[in-house]
């Protein structure tokens, strides 16, 4: 058992931390206020090799391990949840291609995604199917050498700003989850368009939109895996996304701790810094304890993925715990800053709005508690 980061993880963490402090953090407030996608900044991430960190060198990645990917997201999230979340989302379709794609699909789509030329999005959720994702109704119908896709997807992160979309539709309405297949759809494909952009409460620098497919014809070779394997693929990559969410939750909690700590040491009340009062010390202690515990679990989950072990339950635990920790950390940071914390001049209220998202997406916490509980009760 060794909790030390290895040399490459330490070097990568240092680089991402420096990059985040200099290039990312100061832009987060602006992104939050304008709700605009940071194209230029994402280009900078791409140019600096961020898009392919935890992927094999032969597909244009950096050859980093699972923990390297998680550390990257954690450090980025300290400066901007929106940016970290955009990258984490990019890695979802990348995982679909990496784990289930053919060699041709990898060369054509995964390589440009990892080298930073193209951004990706993954689409499963529909107006009538979120947690109940097997209940999607958009369709794919075979027509000679193409599949014709029809239907709407909602709440699609990186929608409208991506070049490559991995979209799940029903190719056999009679089969439920086993009737779902996954397709690669390129931006600009006739019949494929971007619908409403969501005006979100937080993560406002990330783009979340509706996708519309109207007789959208995609070549047969764009199906990932076999017909009917879409749900299996989706569940597998979303499960891994929970580790990414854990990293985001830890990152934003650390940002909360950092703001609260700085303010507590500077703010004077009753003739001394408020950091000298036990009430504040306890808040800081609780934040720090939970962050430390979460990091240990993140390392464990990353290590299990690295070894190819099944860790759906552990990843779900990490996601639920860290998302709730992040909410609490943001709420507590606001409390430490008092009246100032309730204003938009200080970042904790933004952190709170950003953190709320972590409890909802990538498997709502209620669904994941159900997964964890039922697994434990069965075992």
């Amino acid at each position, binding site marked *: 058992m060794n909790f030390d980061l290895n*040399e490459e993880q330490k*070097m*990568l963490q240092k*680089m991402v931390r420096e*990059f985040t402090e200099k290039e990312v953090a100061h832009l987060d407030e602006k992104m939050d206020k304008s709700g605009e996608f940071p194209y230029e900044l994402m280009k900078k991430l791409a140019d600096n*090799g961020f898009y392919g*960190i935890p992927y094999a060198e032969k597909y244009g990645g950096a050859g980093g391990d699972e923990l390297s990917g998680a550390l990257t997201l954690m450090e980025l999230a300290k400066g901007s949840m929106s940016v970290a979340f955009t990258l984490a989302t990019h890695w979802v379709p990348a995982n679909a291609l990496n784990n289930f794609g053919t060699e041709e699909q990898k060369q054509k789509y995964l390589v440009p995604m990892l080298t930073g030329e193209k951004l990706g999005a993954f689409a499963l959720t529909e107006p009538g199917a979120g947690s109940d994702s097997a209940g999607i109704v958009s369709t794919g119908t075979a027509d000679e050498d193409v599949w014709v896709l029809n239907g709407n997807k909602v709440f699609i992160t990186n929608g409208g700003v991506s070049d490559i979309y991995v979209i799940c539709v029903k190719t056999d309405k009679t089969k439920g989850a086993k009737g779902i297949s996954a397709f690669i759809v390129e931006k600009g494909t006739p019949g494929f368009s971007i619908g409403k952009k969501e005006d979100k409460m937080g993560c406002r620098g990330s783009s979340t939109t509706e996708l519309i497919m109207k007789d959208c014809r995609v070549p047969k070779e764009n199906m990932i895996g076999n017909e009917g394997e879409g749900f299996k693929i989706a569940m597998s990559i979303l499960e891994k996304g929970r580790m990414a969410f854990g990293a985001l939750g830890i990152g934003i909690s650390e940002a909360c701790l950092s703001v609260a700590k700085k303010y507590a040491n500077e703010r004077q009340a009753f003739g001394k810094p408020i950091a000298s009062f036990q009430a504040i010390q306890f808040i800081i202690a609780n934040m720090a304890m939970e962050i430390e515990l979460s990091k240990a679990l993140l390392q464990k989950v990353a290590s299990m993925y690295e070894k190819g072990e099944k860790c759906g339950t552990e990843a779900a635990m990490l996601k639920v715990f860290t998302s709730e920790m992040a909410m609490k950390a943001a709420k507590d940071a606001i409390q430490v800053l008092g009246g100032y914390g309730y204003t938009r001049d200080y970042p904790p209220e933004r952190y709170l709005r950003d953190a709320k998202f972590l409890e909802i997406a990538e498997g709502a916490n209620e669904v994941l508690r159900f997964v964890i509980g039922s697994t434990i009760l069965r075992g």
Partner: protein
Amino acid sequence: MEILVCIKQVPDPTVEVRIDPKTKNLVREGIVGVINPYDKNALEEAIRIKESQGGKVTVISMGPPQVKESLREALAMGADEAILLSDREFGGADTLATSYVLAQAIKKLGKVDIILFGKNAVDADTGQVGPIVAEKLGLPQITFASKISVDGNILLVDRHLEEATETIKVTLPAVITACKELNEPRYPNPLKIMKAARKEITVWGKTDIQVDAAKLGLKGSPTCVLEIFSPSKSTQVKILNGSPEEASQALFTVLREDKVI
């Protein structure tokens, strides 16, 4: 083009360095070593020259084993090779003894076209090592470079001076020291990080280079630091009374006397 960059690991300048009032030494506890910022400019320029002209960038440093971390960072930015000069007998060296070891190591490397340094290290602030190495190797030196253009084996270098910019033409080989106006150093690249982290760094001790033991480390250092202390901070408050006009006039006089304006 064979390019050599000499770097120094310094205490992180973004963290306030304390001096132990008793031992008069830097309190190194908890302070991370980083590449001297101007050395990063030197390294960035070396990599850019390599990218446009072809060739190889070697990075070299003298110091204890933990300097390997900085050398690995240099590799992750784009240097091809890294050499650490490390030996107990190199310890305690002043600028003269440091320059001696560097010059001897550079002689061992053989053909070098450009040798780059940062204009000075931000810890001791002497700015002497680059120029001394140039003298020891008998090479021309151009300090405070803010722009370098390559034309075959000739360099056009802008020197960033206080009141002016001086442009100098030099035939290679030459020694150049970089200032921050030269460029914006890149971040280490993730793929290169993975490779650099796994790479073995070459270490040369005193037996690996031709050196005269009397010129090494403390023995070879004529400089003797007698005392080092933090400047005492004193603030005085002066209240200027009178009407706004009188107070402004008084403030103007004070600022004039203190040579602020």
